[in-house]
Each structure stands twice: as C-alpha cells, then as structure tokens.
C-alpha cells in the first residue's frame, strides 16, 4: 500500500482532469463523444512527445484511469512495437496495448446489454 498522501495526489490529479472536462462541458456544450476523443488525443500526444511517463509516475491512477491514459497507452504501444518489430509495429502496437480494455468494454457491454433492459431516463 502507498502512503496516504499518494492517494491524495491521485485524487487531486484525477479530479483536476475531470474538472477541466466539466469546464469544457459547461462553456462549449461539447458532446460526450467529442470530449472522449479530445482527451484521448491529448493522451496520445503526451505519450508521443515522451512527457506522459513522468506525469504518470507522479499522478499514477490520476492520469491512467481517465481516458487520457487509454490514449497514451495506444501511443506507447505503437512506439514500443516499432522499436521491437519495425514496420509491422505501426499497425500492431497501438491496438495490442489497449486490447484488454477494449475487449472488456465490448464484452461486458454486450453481456450487460443483453441481460438488462433500458430504463426510462428521468432528468
């Protein structure tokens, strides 16, 4: 287990990223799909210019759990695969590195989508 202040950092960084998202939602009325794509691409970019690793070492789950980490994982996977396999890595690296999360999201989405009925939304 980590010391308690590490969890405080995780809470703070994760919360901050979500708060930036909420600011975008309030000011620009951005849709869910756009906001997810935007933060994913930010993660990709951070990993591509090699500054994701130091941030991740500091923030841990605070940046790995947000979709930013998903994007960074895609870029890191592509970079590592290119180093290891050359030209093939361009196509295999990205998806392979997020395969677990992607398959889980689709699999559980299919499972619970078939099991449960949609409820009428009340807002």
């Amino acid at each position: 287990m980590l010391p308690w202040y590490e969890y405080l950092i995780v809470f703070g960084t994760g919360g901050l990223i979500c708060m930036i998202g909420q600011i975008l939602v309030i000011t620009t009325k951005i849709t869910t799909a756009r906001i997810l794509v935007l933060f994913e691409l930010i993660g990709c970019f951070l990993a591509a210019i090699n500054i994701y690793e130091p941030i991740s070492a500091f923030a841990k789950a605070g940046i790995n759990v947000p979709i930013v980490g998903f994007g960074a994982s895609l870029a890191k996977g592509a970079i590592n695969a290119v180093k290891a396999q050359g030209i093939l890595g361009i196509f295999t690296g990205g998806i392979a590195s997020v395969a677990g999360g992607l398959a889980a999201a689709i699999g559980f989405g299919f499972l619970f989508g078939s099991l449960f009925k949609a409820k009428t939304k009340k807002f």
Partner: protein
Amino acid sequence: MTELERNERYNKYVEAKIAKTHAWPSLFNAFCFGGIICVIGQLFNDMLLSIFPTMATQSAWTLTLIFLIFVASFLTGLGVFDKIAVYAGAGTIIPITGFSNSIASPAMEFKNEGIVFGMCAKMFVIAGPVIVFGTVASIIVGLIYLLV
C-alpha cells in the same frame, strides 16, 4: 397590460422555472467523483500488486481498467450509473468508466431494434469515434517513430 409587459413577465416566469446548471457545484462534483474513481482504481491496482507481487506493472494497470470497465458496465445495466452521472457530469465521463458506459448504454437501449443492427451496431455510436481516432493516432505515432 401591454404586450411587451406580458412578454417580459412570461420570460421571467420561464427563467424561474428552467432548471439552472449551477456551474460551481457541478465543477466541484466533477472533481470529487473523478477523483474518487481514480482513487478506487489506484486502490485496486495496489491490492492486485500486493496479492501478486510478481505481476508486471502494465498487466496490473490493464486489469485495473478491466475491473473499472466491469463495474461501470454493471452499474449501467442496473441503471445506477445514469443517476450518478447526473450529479458527476464529466467526473464519470472522462475516466474509463465513461467509455464503458458509452458502449453498454446504447447496447441496452437499441436492443429492441435487433441484435445485429440494433445492439451490436449502435454499441459504437460514441465509442466508435474514440476507437477510430485512437487507432489512427497510434498509426501516425508509430509511423513518425519509424521515420525519425
């Protein structure tokens, strides 16, 4: 009462009835819910590493994300996720839980339009762009690293 006065009064009435999006509380909620989800992820990750000390960091993170995806899909199925999301706003969208919810939610909703073109096709209404942009970006990054 002139027409102008009446319109003014009506506008005031509408203004009072509309549910206002309170900016500051929603920011606070997004911060708290987002932070809590990240802390849950960190706790699960630490627990995993303390049970299996030999596990690779990357594998532990992947399992953590799978755990969060599982919980989010399940809560979406139960209808609890939407209730939380009303308060949390981006606090539940930005973490991987939002990605999971964006797949499970349309899967449930469009089930009655058929399995293939309803559920399986509509699943990716929101997640599709995320996957496409992510894949294309990773190809571009890989290409740049090959050339540089």
